[in-house]
C-alpha cells in the first residue's frame, strides 16, 4: 500500500515537473507546477507528515501559484511562449544540480544499506508541532523572528506599491 502511494504521488510530481519544464505556454507550466506541489504534498502525507502536507497545499497550491497565475494572466495573453534557446543555457546548470542530487542519494543509500526498516503507524503531528512553536527551548525564537521578518516584508511591499502610485499617477 505504502509503495503504491509513493509511486502514485511521485509519478504525479515527476510528470508535472516534466510538463512544467518543457511546455511552451507559461500558463500550462504554472498549472503543471500545481501538479508537482500536489504530488509532493501527497508524499508528505504518505510519510506521515499530515500538517506539512496540508500546509503545502494551502499555501503553495492555494496561494502562491494562484498569485503566479494571476500575474501571468494580467501581464500576457498567450504571448508567454518560451524560446528553445533558454533550455540550452539551462542545461549545464541542471546537469550540475542533477549530479549533486545523485551524490546525495548515494550517501542516503550508503547509510541505510543493511539496516532493518520497520513501518510505523503515522501519528498526528499537529500537537507536537504546536508545542514546539511555543517552547522556549524549542522553536519559539526562530518562529517569532520569522514572523517579524514576514511583517517587514509586508510593510515593505505596501511601501513600494504606494511609492509607485504617488510617482506615476497615470499608471
Amino acid at each position: 500500500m505504502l509503495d503504491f502511494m509513493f509511486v502514485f504521488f511521485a509519478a504525479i510530481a515527476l510528470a508535472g515537473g516534466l510538463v512544467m519544464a518543457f511546455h511552451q505556454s507559461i500558463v500550462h507550466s504554472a498549472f503543471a507546477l500545481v501538479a508537482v506541489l500536489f504530488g509532493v504534498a501527497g508524499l508528505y502525507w504518505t510519510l506521515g507528515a499530515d500538517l506539512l502536507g496540508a500546509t503545502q497545499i494551502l499555501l503553495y497550491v492555494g496561494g502562491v501559484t494562484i498569485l503566479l497565475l494571476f500575474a501571468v494572466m494580467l501581464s500576457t495573453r498567450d504571448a508567454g511562449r518560451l524560446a528553445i534557446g533558454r533550455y540550452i543555457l539551462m542545461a549545464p546548470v541542471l546537469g550540475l544540480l542533477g549530479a549533486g542530487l545523485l551524490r546525495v542519494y548515494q550517501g542516503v543509500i550508503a547509510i541505510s544499506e543493511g539496516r532493518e526498516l520497520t513501518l510505523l503507524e503515522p501519528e498526528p503531528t499537529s500537537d507536537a508541532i504546536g508545542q514546539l512553536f511555543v517552547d522556549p527551548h524549542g522553536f519559539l525564537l526562530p518562529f517569532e523572528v520569522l514572523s517579524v521578518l514576514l511583517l517587514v516584508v509586508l510593510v515593505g511591499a505596501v511601501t513600494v506599491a504606494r511609492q509607485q502610485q504617488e510617482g506615476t499617477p497615470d499608471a
Partner: protein
Amino acid sequence: MSLAVLTFADDPIFYLAANLAKIVVFTHIVLILSALSVLAERKVSAWMQDRLGPNRVGPGGILQPAADALKFFFKEDIVPGHVDKVLYILAPAIALMPALIVLAVIPYGPPLTVLGETIPMVIADLDIGILFVFAISSLGVYGIVLAGWASNSKYPMLGGVRASAQMISYEVMLGLSVVGIFMSTESLRLTDVITSQVDGTWFMFSQPIAFIIFVIAAFAETNRLPFDLPEAETELVAGYHTEYSSMKFAMFFIGEYTAMFVFSALVAVLFLGGWDIPFMSNADFEALGNWGTLLGFLSFFVKCLAFLFFYIWVRWTIPRFRFDQLMNLGWKVLMPIALVNVVLTGVVLGWLGS
C-alpha cells in the same frame, strides 16, 4: 458502553466495506441535495417574487432537476475554435472536484454501531480536519481561473481575474475567523469541535464575531450574491462560464451548489453544533445508541438545509457589491476584526484559565 472504533487491522474487509458504503451514501445524498437546491433556488425566488416557479414536471415541479439534467445531456457540446483545448476541458472537472473531496472530512452524525463495531459517521476523521478543508477548498478557484483563461475570450477572462483576487482575499478571512474556535477546543479535529459544542454552548453564541465573518466569507468563496462578481450577468454576460455549453456548463453548476452545501455543512459543524440537539449531551446520544445517530444525522441535515435556504434568501434580497467595495470590506474591515477576535479569544481564555 463505548466500543473501540473499527480500524483496518481489526477486520479489513468489514472496514473497507463500511468506508465504501459511507463514501457512496454521503456523496449521493449531497449530490442529490445539490440538485434539489437548484430547484429550491427557483422555487424560493419565485415565492419571493410572488410567482409560482417550476411546477410542470412531477408533483409541484419536484422532478425539474431530472428534466434539467436530461436536457443538459442532450444539448450539443460546443467547443469553440479559439479555446485552449486541454485546459478548457479540464476546468469544469477541476471546479467540481474540491467540493467533493471536502465531503470526506465532514462529520455527518454521531458514531453508528453495526454488528458490535463502532463506525464513525465521517469518511476520514483527520487530526488536521479544518486545515484539510481550507487546503482543498482553496483549490476551488483553479476551475474558475482556468475556465476564464482557457476560454480565450474577454468576459470569461475578466471573470477569472476577478475570481482569483476575490477568492484569495476571502480565504484569508475564512481561515482567520475560525482560529478562535480552535483555541477554545484545543483541537483541529472536526468531531472534537462538535463534541465540545454538544456539551457546551454553540460557537455561534460564544464566537459571534467569528460566525458573522465566516458567513460573509463563505458567501464570497462560493461566488454567491452579494459577491457573485466573477459571473455577474449584467456586467460579464456569465463570467467564467460564458463559453461553456451542455454538460460542461452543468458541471460548473453542480460544483457551485455542492460548494454551497459544503459551506453550509461547515457552518453547521463549526458554529451550529453539528449533530447537536439543544439540551442533549454526548452521554444522551450514546445512551440512545443508533437512534441517537439517526437523530443527530437528521439534526445535522436540518441545519445544513436551513443555511442553504439562507444562501438563497440572501441572493434574492441583497444587491451586488462593487469590486472595490468587496476588496475594502475584506481587507480593511473583516481582516482587522478577525485579528482582534483572535486576540480577544486568547485574552478571555487566558483569563479563564489562570
